[in-house]
């Protein structure tokens, strides 16, 4: 399905910590990232994509546009989604992740703002965040066309002319030919990615030194 990227503004991460951030010894284990959409009207969210960087659990809260009289409320749409099965080890630490509409707890029809709550309970890591955050909404549906009348209301087919003796049934022949044509099209469209096997250039393999780039 098509999707369109939504320009978003990612605010700086805010660490949640008990006590004074500067003087206390431990590192924060919870970070909050706010994502706003300043120039876009409330839209339907299709997919959230990002690259993880040592975040263990992710929760997402969304503020949706409701009727004009009631103020927009924050609702949790994803709770403690596990990105790293073992927060102390590297598994899943730098993976690319996609979250889709159907994984959310509430429907995401008119999104105003998102809040990502990142948790990393392990003290082993110096920092954690999510990178390359991208939000997608549903792409435009194919434009509806008006069909000409003869296509949408076909004329009832008239009686076919009687078959000439000795010749095969034309509808059977046409269906078989259609199948053959489909197979040949498939063969033509396929291509392979195997190499030819030559390692030299026109028979010459006289080399400089190995290059470092």
């Amino acid at each position: 399905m098509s999707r369109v990227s939504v320009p978003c503004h990612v605010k700086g991460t805010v660490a949640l910590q008990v006590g004074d951030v500067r003087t206390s010894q431990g590192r924060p284990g919870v970070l909050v990232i706010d994502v706003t959409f300043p120039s876009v009207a409330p839209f339907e969210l299709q997919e959230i994509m990002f690259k993880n960087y040592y975040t263990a659990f992710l929760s997402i809260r969304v503020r949706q546009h409701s009727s004009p009289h009631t103020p927009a409320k924050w609702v949790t749409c994803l709770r403690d989604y596990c990105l790293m099965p073992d927060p102390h080890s590297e598994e899943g630490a730098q993976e690319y992740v996609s979250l889709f509409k159907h994984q959310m707890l509430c429907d995401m029809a008119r999104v105003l703002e998102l809040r990502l709550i990142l948790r990393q309970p392990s003290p082993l890591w110096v920092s954690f965040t999510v990178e390359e955050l991208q939000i997608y909404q549903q792409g435009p549906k194919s434009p509806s066309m008006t069909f000409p009348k003869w296509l949408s209301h076909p004329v009832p087919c008239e009686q076919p002319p009687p078959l000439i003796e000795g010749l095969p049934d034309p509808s059977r022949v046409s269906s078989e030919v259609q199948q053959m044509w489909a197979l040949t099209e498939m063969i033509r469209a396929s291509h392979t990615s195997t190499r030819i096997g030559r390692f030299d250039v026109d028979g010459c393999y006289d080399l400089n030194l190995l290059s470092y780039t």
Partner: protein
Amino acid sequence: MLQEESDLSLIIAQIVQKLKGSNLYAQLERQAWACLQRPEIKLESLKEDIKEFFKISGWEKKLQNAVYSELSVFPLPSHPAAPPEHLKEPLVYMRKAQGSWEKRILKSLNSMCTELSIPLARKRPVGEQKELLSKWNEMGTDEPDLSLFRPVYAPKDFLEVLINLRNPNYENGDSLSFRTHLGLIQVPLKVKDIPELKEFFVELGLTTGQLGIDDSTQVPPELFENEHVRIGQKVLAEQDGAAAQQYIRQGSPTALRADLWALILNISSQPEDILYYEQLKTNVIQHDLLVDSLIYKDVKLTASNDDYYFVFEDYLYQVLLCFSRDTSVLGHFAYNSASPPKSYIRGKLGLEEYAVFYPPNGVIPFHGFSMYVAPLCFLYHEPSKLYQIFREMYVRFFFRLHSISSHPSGIVSLCLLFETLLQTYLPQLFYHLREIGAQPLRISFKWMVRAFSGYLATDQLLLLWDRILGYNSLEILAVLAAAVFAFRAVNLMEVTSLAAAEAVLADLSTLKVMPLLQIFLFATVT
């Protein structure tokens, strides 16, 4: 649900793409054309009739084997936004470490080239080509002067690189704390613990029959061995690759091993394969590479000196020299964290049309590389089949033993698995060895890098490699290394230096692999 379906269709598309260029595809096409003559194939139901024909004639089985083989080798499809480097290795700092290690190797090779004034590659004059062709089957009798050549690197150099591997985001701290690893490897990769290993290696359990234990002379063959051989023959008759992989977890009878390995690795010697090998042989005769001298030196230093393998010296040259000309090996760099070295044709520096890989297969051999091939010589005597088996074993398993990656079968994970197992289940021994300056990994690293080739007796080594194929994983190497330390723990507790510890563990040729593994995994009181 949606995600799983799209994952599945992606995997299917990838496998189809891969198989389209293979021999099997051409053969299936030929068969499909040929079977059109048969009376049961009707034009209206062409597709279904041909599919039915394939099922009956056994071609579907071959296709199944090919697909299963691809699934075993190919990593799971990653996220569509992930760049190709991510597929090679997801962790950025490991990619960087592999890159700088490769740069060191290239510098070493370049300096050898300039010091000895020998070109990286040279076209052989016709006279020399004729001479080499006549001596092809006895290259071992050649005694070129190799004294100036030295191996590009040895396993202990690689170990130093792994010891210095650090994750910049990992809080190591200067003082010892709960964060410091007591072993040599300092990166926090996920490794299995013994309960997980017991589950993974469940067929090695105490109640399951094993070749290597239950075929010894004291055990009557009616209890296990006869039945096991009968099942093996049935698997071979059915030509089922997946069943063979499951069967071989309990070991392979000696008579069936060559065929079983070929079935699991999906190698069938077709005329095209023999032709391909002959083409590689022609490439060897036409061009002389610097890498050839490194291979010669390695074979002379390692395999030729080994009591078991010196007879195969000529085979080793025939396989390894052709291996370095084989560009199909370049395909495995898609899932290997390493990258092939690049160069340009002389005088065309920087022009992409004249960029080539050196050596043509992108793999620079190190000290001990020929030991990957040597054990296979016991199983296969026909050079082109031996070659194919080795190449497939390399692109499935052996490449992981000398590149830096976070894969569970990669050498870094194996080292960490070994150290963790030893620390958890033999803490006194680990502490003692550490105190006397004999970190256990310094001794066991060379065993794991060579997959124990040259250290174990050949029949034991082949039983071990049976399990590598059966479980499609190299983790058993780390478990065996820990089991060896556990076996010799009493002697090791009495040593007082690294040299003495090395001496205790110098000779592994009398060890029986399967009992050690079984006791360590299933019979040790934890």
